[in-house]
């Protein structure tokens, strides 16, 4: 039976509500390229956070560089606030093995020592390979290893989730 993917916009609203009571205006959001950045932009606005939005590309911290080489499209990380002692929430679209989050944390610590790091993910698809957990989740939804859940953004800015066939990440 093919379960249908939840609606991304609905999940986003749910995620924002779950976060609202647990963040302060000083909470700093950092979106992980690319889907996490789109989500973080929307959350930043929805939660009216004061700290400017950060974006992070984990290509230089991935653990599969040795086997897959450098990602063909690397983007710059941009963290326009002081990481030392900051209360940070990392935002990603799909939480799966946990390796991307591990890489993001390693990268963040090269900027300084934060007060705390929490994780918000639109979808938790299970399949963790590392002891990583998200504090804020839109929904849990698992798919076989041969498939990938991707976040897409339309030209008008509407977010949606799609399933694609790919090798396990």
């Amino acid at each position, binding site marked *: 039976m093919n379960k249908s993917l939840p609606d991304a916009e609905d999940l986003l609203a749910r995620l924002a509500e779950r976060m609202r009571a647990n963040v302060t205006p000083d909470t700093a959001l950092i979106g992980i390229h690319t889907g996490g950045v789109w989500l973080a932009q929307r959350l930043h606005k929805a939660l009216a956070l004061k700290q400017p939005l950060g974006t992070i590309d984990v290509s230089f911290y991935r653990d599969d560089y040795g086997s897959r080489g*450098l990602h063909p499209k690397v983007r710059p990380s941009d963290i326009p606030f002081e990481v030392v002692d900051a209360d940070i929430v990392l935002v990603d679209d799909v939480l799966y093995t946990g390796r991307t989050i591990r890489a993001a944390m390693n990268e963040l610590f090269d*900027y300084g020592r934060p007060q705390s790091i929490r994780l918000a993910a639109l979808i938790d698809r299970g399949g963790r390979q590392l002891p990583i957990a998200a504090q804020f989740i839109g929904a849990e939804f698992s798919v076989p290893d041969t498939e990938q859940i991707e976040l897409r953004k339309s030209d008008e800015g509407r977010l949606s989730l799609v399933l694609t066939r790919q090798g396990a990440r």
Partner: protein
Amino acid sequence: MTVSNPQLDVNGELTHLLTVEGLPREIILRILDTAHSFLSVGEREIKKVPLLRGKAIFNLFFEASTRTRTTFEIAAKRLSADVINLNVGTSSQSKGETLLDTVANLSAMHADMFVVRHSQSGAAHLIARHVAPYIHVINAGDGRHAHPTQGLLDMFTIRHYKKEFSALRVAIVGDVLHSRVARSQIHALTTLGVPEVRVIGPRTLLPSNVSELGVHVYHDMTTGLKDVDVVIMLRLQNERMNGALLPSAQEFFKYYGLTPEKLANAKRDAIVMHPGPMNRGIEIESSVADGRQSVILPQVTFGIAVRMAVMSILAGNA
């Protein structure tokens, strides 16, 4: 007989960086884009990423150079690599060991990458032909032939200030005949689609077939710099006076040195570049070198990011 491009592996991926000539445009752009991300690494507290941790990079400099070697060393260390510096003139080479024997010995010490500078054109190609498949070679300058990382960082610089290549006029001034930097710049500019590349210099300092590289030749700096967006000054070596190529540094400066008056022929927002080290008062007047249009110092910063990009792309390709 000619063989396939020795810089690319069977999958068309970059396995050595020997020259900009013949490098596909997509690869050049990828290097520039990746370098852009490495720039921000240099601006934060911990200027390192763990990408090349455990890799050994050997700087094989058969021709002395502190500047270039230092930037490669910084780049490698920012990638968390181990760096070994060899000024080969003082070691086994001078005892009569051949170039290839030196390389073979070092490979046996588990080198992952060689950064090579040599006074002979083609040295990096020779080494690349003979290293084990998993070892990558970066040409840091071979004779008059190529200095690809310099050419690439110069493109990065131009893109940083001018955004687009498609409508630019670029002038390269000085001793093109002996310049590996100029050759790499010319290949990069033409590959990236710069519509007008000019070389300016006296006939004795321009190669006889230089127009076949796709450049316009000027002997007069005033007309040559007219409406130019980018001015690249090349270094003039003292030895040129000995070979009956030039009468004196003074006469060279009079006709080809970059002064504010000559620069005024270029566009108002033209940028001034120089690969360094500068001979103030010979190629370029201090007021221009230190002036508002000069981007000579940023070139150095960009050079570290570009070299980090090259190393990390190469090391990631099997």
